[in-house]
Protein backbone atom coordinates (compact mmCIF):
# COMPACT_ATOMS: atom_id res chain seq x y z
CA UNK A 1 0.00 0.00 0.00
CA UNK A 2 2.84 2.39 0.87
CA UNK A 3 4.36 1.95 -2.58
CA UNK A 4 1.11 2.79 -4.36
CA UNK A 5 0.45 5.55 -1.91
CA UNK A 6 3.67 7.24 -3.04
CA UNK A 7 2.60 7.11 -6.70
CA UNK A 8 -0.86 8.38 -5.85
CA UNK A 9 0.50 11.21 -3.76
CA UNK A 10 2.95 12.37 -6.42
CA UNK A 11 0.16 12.54 -9.03
CA UNK A 12 -2.24 14.29 -6.67
CA UNK A 13 0.38 16.77 -5.56
CA UNK A 14 1.48 17.58 -9.10
CA UNK A 15 -2.10 18.18 -10.14
CA UNK A 16 -3.24 20.09 -7.07
CA UNK A 17 0.06 21.74 -6.03
CA UNK A 18 -1.09 21.53 -2.44
CA UNK A 19 0.20 18.97 0.05
CA UNK A 20 -2.83 18.98 2.33
CA UNK A 21 -5.34 18.58 -0.50
CA UNK A 22 -3.16 15.93 -2.13
CA UNK A 23 -3.09 13.95 1.12
CA UNK A 24 -6.88 14.18 1.40
CA UNK A 25 -7.28 12.96 -2.16
CA UNK A 26 -4.95 10.01 -1.59
CA UNK A 27 -6.81 9.03 1.54
CA UNK A 28 -10.17 9.27 -0.21
CA UNK A 29 -8.79 7.36 -3.20
CA UNK A 30 -7.68 4.41 -1.09
CA UNK A 31 -11.01 4.30 0.69
CA UNK A 32 -12.73 4.19 -2.70
CA UNK A 33 -10.31 1.55 -3.93
CA UNK A 34 -11.08 -0.57 -0.89
CA UNK A 35 -14.82 -0.22 -1.24
CA UNK A 36 -14.70 -0.82 -5.01
CA UNK A 37 -12.36 -3.81 -4.93
CA UNK A 38 -15.14 -6.30 -5.69
CA UNK A 39 -15.82 -4.37 -8.91
CA UNK A 40 -12.16 -4.13 -9.92
CA UNK A 41 -11.66 -5.24 -13.50
CA UNK A 42 -8.54 -7.38 -13.45
CA UNK A 43 -7.90 -6.75 -17.11
CA UNK A 44 -6.88 -3.23 -16.15
CA UNK A 45 -3.52 -2.63 -14.47
CA UNK A 46 -3.96 -1.82 -10.81
CA UNK A 47 -1.92 1.39 -11.11
CA UNK A 48 -4.05 2.51 -14.04
CA UNK A 49 -7.17 1.95 -12.00
CA UNK A 50 -5.65 3.76 -9.03
CA UNK A 51 -4.52 6.71 -11.17
CA UNK A 52 -8.01 6.86 -12.62
CA UNK A 53 -9.57 7.25 -9.18
CA UNK A 54 -6.94 9.77 -8.07
CA UNK A 55 -7.25 11.78 -11.29
CA UNK A 56 -11.00 11.98 -11.10
CA UNK A 57 -10.93 13.10 -7.48
CA UNK A 58 -8.33 15.73 -8.38
CA UNK A 59 -10.50 16.82 -11.28
CA UNK A 60 -13.40 17.37 -8.87
CA UNK A 61 -11.14 19.40 -6.57
CA UNK A 62 -9.88 21.54 -9.44
CA UNK A 63 -13.39 22.21 -10.65
CA UNK A 64 -14.49 23.17 -7.14
CA UNK A 65 -11.58 25.58 -6.98
CA UNK A 66 -12.52 27.08 -10.33
CA UNK A 67 -16.09 27.57 -9.16
CA UNK A 68 -14.87 29.28 -6.02
CA UNK A 69 -12.43 31.28 -8.12
CA UNK A 70 -9.52 30.26 -5.93
CA UNK A 71 -6.38 28.30 -6.62
CA UNK A 72 -3.83 26.78 -4.36
CA UNK A 73 -1.34 29.20 -5.81
CA UNK A 74 -3.20 32.42 -5.31
CA UNK A 75 -0.45 33.47 -2.96
CA UNK A 76 2.10 33.37 -5.77
CA UNK A 77 2.74 36.74 -7.28
CA UNK A 78 2.25 36.55 -11.09
CA UNK A 79 5.10 38.98 -11.53
CA UNK A 80 7.43 36.34 -10.16
CA UNK A 81 8.08 35.00 -13.59
CA UNK A 82 9.23 38.38 -14.74
CA UNK A 83 11.46 38.78 -11.75
CA UNK A 84 13.07 35.38 -12.03
CA UNK A 85 16.54 35.74 -13.34
CA UNK A 86 17.23 34.05 -16.62
CA UNK A 87 19.16 30.95 -15.81
CA UNK A 88 20.89 28.81 -18.36
CA UNK A 89 22.26 26.37 -15.89
CA UNK A 90 19.65 23.70 -15.27
CA UNK A 91 20.98 23.00 -11.80
CA UNK A 92 20.56 26.65 -10.87
CA UNK A 93 17.08 26.63 -12.33
CA UNK A 94 16.14 23.63 -10.27
CA UNK A 95 17.35 25.30 -7.13
CA UNK A 96 15.34 28.36 -7.98
CA UNK A 97 12.23 27.96 -5.89
CA UNK A 98 10.64 31.04 -7.35
CA UNK A 99 10.75 29.54 -10.82
CA UNK A 100 9.26 26.30 -9.54
CA UNK A 101 6.50 28.30 -7.89
CA UNK A 102 5.92 30.21 -11.08
CA UNK A 103 5.65 27.00 -13.08
CA UNK A 104 3.17 25.65 -10.59
CA UNK A 105 1.21 28.86 -10.98
CA UNK A 106 1.26 28.50 -14.76
CA UNK A 107 0.13 24.89 -14.77
CA UNK A 108 -2.59 25.87 -12.33
CA UNK A 109 -3.98 28.21 -14.97
CA UNK A 110 -4.60 25.34 -17.37
CA UNK A 111 -8.16 24.03 -17.60
CA UNK A 112 -8.56 21.04 -15.24
CA UNK A 113 -8.60 18.41 -17.95
CA UNK A 114 -5.53 19.81 -19.73
CA UNK A 115 -3.69 20.06 -16.47
CA UNK A 116 -4.39 16.46 -15.52
CA UNK A 117 -3.40 15.20 -18.95
CA UNK A 118 -0.21 17.27 -18.86
CA UNK A 119 0.71 15.99 -15.38
CA UNK A 120 0.03 12.36 -16.19
CA UNK A 121 1.89 12.43 -19.47
CA UNK A 122 4.71 14.95 -19.07
CA UNK A 123 5.38 14.88 -15.34
CA UNK A 124 4.33 11.37 -14.39
CA UNK A 125 5.68 9.86 -17.62
CA UNK A 126 2.68 7.73 -18.54
CA UNK A 127 2.06 6.86 -22.17
CA UNK A 128 -0.69 8.51 -24.20
CA UNK A 129 -2.64 5.25 -24.29
CA UNK A 130 -2.40 4.90 -20.51
CA UNK A 131 -3.61 8.46 -20.04
CA UNK A 132 -6.49 7.83 -22.40
CA UNK A 133 -7.44 4.70 -20.47
CA UNK A 134 -7.20 6.47 -17.11
CA UNK A 135 -9.35 9.39 -18.20
CA UNK A 136 -11.53 7.40 -20.56
CA UNK A 137 -10.76 9.74 -23.43
CA UNK A 138 -9.72 8.97 -26.97
CA UNK A 139 -6.01 9.11 -27.69
CA UNK A 140 -6.53 11.91 -30.19
CA UNK A 141 -8.32 13.93 -27.52
CA UNK A 142 -5.44 13.34 -25.10
CA UNK A 143 -2.94 14.45 -27.76
CA UNK A 144 -4.93 17.55 -28.62
CA UNK A 145 -5.07 18.60 -24.98
CA UNK A 146 -1.36 17.94 -24.65
CA UNK A 147 -0.59 20.24 -27.55
CA UNK A 148 -2.60 23.06 -26.04
CA UNK A 149 -1.05 22.60 -22.59
CA UNK A 150 2.49 22.44 -23.91
CA UNK A 151 1.99 25.42 -26.16
CA UNK A 152 0.47 27.41 -23.32
CA UNK A 153 3.45 26.69 -21.08
CA UNK A 154 6.03 27.32 -23.79
CA UNK A 155 4.56 30.68 -24.72
CA UNK A 156 4.71 31.84 -21.11
CA UNK A 157 8.02 30.30 -20.15
CA UNK A 158 10.08 31.09 -23.22
CA UNK A 159 10.59 34.79 -22.52
CA UNK A 160 12.36 33.84 -19.32
CA UNK A 161 14.32 30.78 -20.33
CA UNK A 162 15.36 31.40 -23.92
CA UNK A 163 19.03 31.75 -24.84
Amino acid at each position, binding site marked *: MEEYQGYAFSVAFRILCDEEEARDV*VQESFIRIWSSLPRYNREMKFTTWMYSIVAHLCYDKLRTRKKRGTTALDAVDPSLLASVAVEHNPERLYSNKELAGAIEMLTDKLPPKQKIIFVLRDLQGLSVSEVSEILRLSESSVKAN*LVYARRFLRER*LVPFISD
Partner: protein
Amino acid sequence: MPGDSSVNDLSPSFQIEMPMNCTRFRKAMYFREDELGPDEWREFQRHLSTCRACVAKYREVERTQEVLALFKNRTPNSTNPVAMANAVIGEIERNNSRKTSASVYDLIVLRLGLPVVRIAIASTLTLLCASFLIEYTSGYVHVKGLETSISTSSLVHSDFPAPFLTQNDALGVVSDLSRFATGKKSFFEVSGNWVMINKASIEDFILLYNELQSITPKLPPEFRAAHPQLWKLLTKKKDAKELDALLKERMSLIRELNDLIPQERKIP
Protein backbone atom coordinates in the same frame (compact mmCIF):
# COMPACT_ATOMS: atom_id res chain seq x y z
CA MET B 1 -14.26 14.38 -18.18
CA PRO B 2 -16.75 16.33 -20.18
CA GLY B 3 -17.76 19.87 -19.68
CA ASP B 4 -14.68 22.01 -19.51
CA SER B 5 -13.00 24.23 -21.99
CA SER B 6 -10.38 21.70 -23.03
CA VAL B 7 -9.94 20.42 -26.50
CA ASN B 8 -11.74 17.23 -27.33
CA ASP B 9 -10.28 16.32 -30.65
CA LEU B 10 -6.99 16.75 -32.34
CA SER B 11 -7.09 18.77 -35.48
CA PRO B 12 -6.26 16.52 -38.39
CA SER B 13 -4.35 19.33 -40.04
CA PHE B 14 -0.96 17.82 -39.43
CA GLN B 15 -1.80 14.40 -40.72
CA ILE B 16 0.85 13.26 -43.10
CA GLU B 17 0.97 15.21 -46.25
CA MET B 18 4.23 15.35 -47.99
CA PRO B 19 6.20 17.47 -47.72
CA MET B 20 5.65 18.89 -44.20
CA ASN B 21 5.48 22.67 -44.28
CA CYS B 22 6.21 25.17 -41.48
CA THR B 23 2.60 25.39 -40.34
CA ARG B 24 2.33 21.67 -39.92
CA PHE B 25 5.75 21.48 -38.33
CA ARG B 26 4.81 24.04 -35.66
CA LYS B 27 1.91 21.91 -34.60
CA ALA B 28 3.88 18.69 -34.74
CA MET B 29 6.78 20.11 -32.74
CA TYR B 30 4.74 19.82 -29.53
CA PHE B 31 4.67 16.07 -29.93
CA ARG B 32 7.30 13.63 -28.92
CA GLU B 33 8.70 10.95 -31.15
CA ASP B 34 6.45 8.23 -29.72
CA GLU B 35 3.41 10.43 -30.17
CA LEU B 36 3.97 10.78 -33.88
CA GLY B 37 3.80 7.92 -36.33
CA PRO B 38 7.10 6.81 -37.91
CA ASP B 39 6.27 8.50 -41.21
CA GLU B 40 5.31 11.72 -39.49
CA TRP B 41 8.49 11.62 -37.44
CA ARG B 42 10.60 11.18 -40.59
CA GLU B 43 8.88 14.14 -42.22
CA PHE B 44 9.31 16.13 -39.05
CA GLN B 45 13.06 15.42 -38.97
CA ARG B 46 13.42 16.26 -42.63
CA HIS B 47 11.74 19.64 -42.21
CA LEU B 48 13.84 20.33 -39.12
CA SER B 49 17.00 19.76 -41.07
CA THR B 50 15.99 22.19 -43.77
CA CYS B 51 14.16 25.10 -42.08
CA ARG B 52 16.15 27.47 -39.85
CA ALA B 53 13.11 29.35 -38.55
CA CYS B 54 11.50 26.15 -37.40
CA VAL B 55 14.75 25.01 -35.75
CA ALA B 56 14.65 28.15 -33.57
CA LYS B 57 11.06 27.51 -32.58
CA TYR B 58 11.81 23.88 -31.88
CA ARG B 59 14.71 24.90 -29.60
CA GLU B 60 12.23 26.86 -27.51
CA VAL B 61 10.07 23.79 -27.14
CA GLU B 62 13.08 21.71 -26.14
CA ARG B 63 14.14 24.33 -23.63
CA THR B 64 10.67 24.35 -22.09
CA GLN B 65 10.81 20.57 -21.85
CA GLU B 66 14.16 20.80 -20.04
CA VAL B 67 12.79 23.21 -17.48
CA LEU B 68 9.66 21.15 -16.96
CA ALA B 69 11.76 17.99 -16.64
CA LEU B 70 13.56 19.61 -13.72
CA PHE B 71 10.30 20.76 -12.25
CA LYS B 72 8.84 17.28 -12.33
CA ASN B 73 11.45 16.08 -9.84
CA ARG B 74 10.10 18.52 -7.35
CA THR B 75 7.52 16.48 -5.48
CA PRO B 76 7.48 16.24 -1.70
CA ASN B 77 7.33 12.88 0.00
CA SER B 78 3.91 11.86 1.15
CA THR B 79 5.12 12.72 4.69
CA ASN B 80 4.39 9.72 6.88
CA PRO B 81 3.19 6.75 4.80
CA VAL B 82 2.36 4.66 7.86
CA ALA B 83 0.25 7.45 9.35
CA MET B 84 -1.59 7.84 6.07
CA ALA B 85 -2.14 4.08 5.81
CA ASN B 86 -3.50 4.08 9.35
CA ALA B 87 -5.78 6.99 8.52
CA VAL B 88 -7.11 5.13 5.49
CA ILE B 89 -7.67 1.91 7.44
CA GLY B 90 -9.34 3.85 10.26
CA GLU B 91 -11.64 5.61 7.84
CA ILE B 92 -12.55 2.31 6.14
CA GLU B 93 -13.40 0.77 9.52
CA ARG B 94 -15.51 3.79 10.48
CA ASN B 95 -17.31 3.59 7.13
CA ASN B 96 -17.96 -0.11 7.65
CA SER B 97 -19.46 0.41 11.10
CA ARG B 98 -21.55 3.32 9.80
CA LYS B 99 -22.73 1.14 6.92
CA THR B 100 -23.70 -1.72 9.24
CA SER B 101 -25.71 0.47 11.58
CA ALA B 102 -27.18 2.36 8.65
CA SER B 103 -28.24 -0.83 6.92
CA VAL B 104 -30.01 -2.11 10.04
CA TYR B 105 -31.70 1.27 10.39
CA ASP B 106 -32.62 1.19 6.69
CA LEU B 107 -34.10 -2.25 7.02
CA ILE B 108 -36.11 -1.62 10.15
CA VAL B 109 -37.15 1.98 9.85
CA LEU B 110 -36.94 3.06 6.24
CA ARG B 111 -38.04 -0.09 4.47
CA LEU B 112 -40.56 -1.48 6.95
CA GLY B 113 -42.47 1.74 7.33
CA LEU B 114 -41.24 4.96 8.84
CA PRO B 115 -43.91 6.34 11.21
CA VAL B 116 -45.35 3.09 12.51
CA VAL B 117 -42.03 1.55 13.42
CA ARG B 118 -40.74 4.74 15.00
CA ILE B 119 -43.86 5.12 17.13
CA ALA B 120 -43.73 1.45 18.13
CA ILE B 121 -40.07 1.66 19.16
CA ALA B 122 -40.65 4.88 21.10
CA SER B 123 -43.71 3.45 22.86
CA THR B 124 -41.91 0.25 23.84
CA LEU B 125 -38.96 2.17 25.25
CA THR B 126 -41.26 4.49 27.19
CA LEU B 127 -43.21 1.57 28.64
CA LEU B 128 -40.05 -0.25 29.65
CA CYS B 129 -38.69 2.85 31.38
CA ALA B 130 -41.99 3.54 33.11
CA SER B 131 -42.44 -0.03 34.36
CA PHE B 132 -38.87 -0.07 35.64
CA LEU B 133 -39.40 3.16 37.55
CA ILE B 134 -42.69 1.99 39.01
CA GLU B 135 -41.28 -1.32 40.18
CA TYR B 136 -38.08 0.26 41.45
CA THR B 137 -39.94 2.70 43.64
CA SER B 138 -42.55 0.20 44.88
CA GLY B 139 -40.34 -1.32 47.55
CA TYR B 140 -39.91 -4.70 45.93
CA VAL B 141 -36.64 -6.28 45.03
CA HIS B 142 -36.42 -7.84 41.61
CA VAL B 143 -34.45 -11.02 41.46
CA LYS B 144 -33.94 -12.63 38.14
CA GLY B 145 -34.20 -16.34 37.63
CA LEU B 146 -35.07 -17.48 41.14
CA GLU B 147 -38.16 -19.25 40.01
CA THR B 148 -39.14 -21.15 36.98
CA SER B 149 -41.94 -19.55 35.11
CA ILE B 150 -45.26 -20.83 36.38
CA SER B 151 -47.60 -18.30 34.94
CA THR B 152 -47.82 -16.18 31.90
CA SER B 153 -50.63 -14.09 33.36
CA SER B 154 -48.46 -11.66 35.20
CA LEU B 155 -49.10 -9.65 38.34
CA VAL B 156 -52.20 -11.56 39.42
CA HIS B 157 -52.43 -11.70 43.19
CA SER B 158 -53.60 -15.26 43.18
CA ASP B 159 -50.48 -16.63 41.49
CA PHE B 160 -48.17 -18.70 43.61
CA PRO B 161 -44.85 -20.25 42.74
CA ALA B 162 -44.37 -23.98 42.40
CA PRO B 163 -43.44 -26.42 43.89
CA PHE B 164 -45.59 -25.62 46.88
CA LEU B 165 -48.35 -28.05 45.92
CA THR B 166 -49.82 -28.66 42.56
CA GLN B 167 -50.41 -25.35 40.94
CA ASN B 168 -54.17 -25.55 41.40
CA ASP B 169 -53.75 -26.25 45.09
CA ALA B 170 -51.36 -23.38 45.43
CA LEU B 171 -53.74 -21.02 43.74
CA GLY B 172 -56.50 -22.11 46.07
CA VAL B 173 -54.37 -21.73 49.16
CA VAL B 174 -53.20 -18.29 48.22
CA SER B 175 -56.68 -17.23 47.38
CA ASP B 176 -57.85 -18.39 50.80
CA LEU B 177 -54.98 -16.77 52.63
CA SER B 178 -55.38 -13.54 50.75
CA ARG B 179 -58.96 -13.29 51.66
CA PHE B 180 -58.20 -14.34 55.23
CA ALA B 181 -55.49 -11.74 55.57
CA THR B 182 -58.02 -9.01 54.76
CA GLY B 183 -56.58 -7.21 51.84
CA LYS B 184 -52.86 -7.76 52.38
CA LYS B 185 -50.72 -8.20 49.29
CA SER B 186 -49.79 -11.69 48.29
CA PHE B 187 -46.27 -12.64 49.24
CA PHE B 188 -45.20 -13.55 45.79
CA GLU B 189 -46.02 -11.97 42.54
CA VAL B 190 -44.64 -13.77 39.60
CA SER B 191 -44.15 -12.47 36.16
CA GLY B 192 -42.19 -14.75 33.86
CA ASN B 193 -38.80 -15.36 35.38
CA TRP B 194 -38.90 -12.16 37.43
CA VAL B 195 -39.91 -12.66 41.03
CA MET B 196 -40.80 -9.93 43.45
CA ILE B 197 -40.18 -10.86 47.07
CA ASN B 198 -41.58 -8.89 49.94
CA LYS B 199 -40.15 -10.00 53.23
CA ALA B 200 -42.93 -8.44 55.29
CA SER B 201 -45.59 -10.40 53.43
CA ILE B 202 -43.77 -13.65 54.03
CA GLU B 203 -43.42 -12.91 57.72
CA ASP B 204 -47.10 -12.06 57.87
CA PHE B 205 -47.88 -15.33 56.19
CA ILE B 206 -45.67 -17.30 58.57
CA LEU B 207 -47.30 -15.70 61.59
CA LEU B 208 -50.72 -16.34 60.17
CA TYR B 209 -49.93 -19.91 59.28
CA ASN B 210 -48.40 -20.65 62.69
CA GLU B 211 -51.38 -19.09 64.42
CA LEU B 212 -53.81 -21.12 62.33
CA GLN B 213 -51.87 -24.29 62.98
CA SER B 214 -52.03 -23.73 66.74
CA ILE B 215 -55.79 -23.20 66.64
CA THR B 216 -56.71 -25.73 63.95
CA PRO B 217 -58.76 -27.99 66.29
CA LYS B 218 -60.70 -24.94 67.37
CA LEU B 219 -61.49 -23.64 63.88
CA PRO B 220 -65.26 -23.62 63.22
CA PRO B 221 -66.92 -25.69 60.49
CA GLU B 222 -67.64 -22.44 58.58
CA PHE B 223 -63.92 -21.83 58.24
CA ARG B 224 -63.46 -25.37 56.99
CA ALA B 225 -66.16 -24.84 54.36
CA ALA B 226 -65.01 -21.39 53.31
CA HIS B 227 -61.28 -22.31 53.03
CA PRO B 228 -61.08 -25.91 51.91
CA GLN B 229 -57.53 -25.77 50.58
CA LEU B 230 -56.18 -24.09 53.65
CA TRP B 231 -57.94 -26.57 55.82
CA LYS B 232 -56.40 -29.36 53.81
CA LEU B 233 -52.97 -27.81 54.27
CA LEU B 234 -53.40 -27.31 57.99
CA THR B 235 -54.65 -30.78 58.67
CA LYS B 236 -52.48 -32.91 56.40
CA LYS B 237 -49.12 -33.25 58.00
CA LYS B 238 -47.28 -34.09 54.82
CA ASP B 239 -48.38 -30.94 53.04
CA ALA B 240 -47.76 -28.89 56.12
CA LYS B 241 -44.20 -30.12 56.29
CA GLU B 242 -43.71 -29.14 52.67
CA LEU B 243 -44.97 -25.69 53.44
CA ASP B 244 -42.68 -25.42 56.43
CA ALA B 245 -39.74 -26.44 54.35
CA LEU B 246 -40.67 -24.02 51.64
CA LEU B 247 -41.02 -21.11 54.04
CA LYS B 248 -37.67 -21.87 55.65
CA GLU B 249 -36.16 -22.09 52.23
CA ARG B 250 -37.65 -18.70 51.34
CA MET B 251 -36.30 -17.06 54.46
CA SER B 252 -32.81 -18.44 53.99
CA LEU B 253 -33.02 -17.36 50.37
CA ILE B 254 -33.87 -13.84 51.42
CA ARG B 255 -30.92 -13.81 53.81
CA GLU B 256 -28.60 -14.97 51.06
CA LEU B 257 -29.96 -12.38 48.70
CA ASN B 258 -29.46 -9.67 51.25
CA ASP B 259 -25.77 -10.51 51.27
CA LEU B 260 -25.58 -10.16 47.52
CA ILE B 261 -27.82 -7.20 46.84
CA PRO B 262 -26.35 -3.70 47.16
CA GLN B 263 -27.24 -1.81 50.33
CA GLU B 264 -29.62 0.60 48.66
CA ARG B 265 -31.72 -2.26 47.30
CA LYS B 266 -31.83 -4.52 50.33
CA ILE B 267 -35.07 -6.32 50.94
CA PRO B 268 -36.99 -4.25 53.47
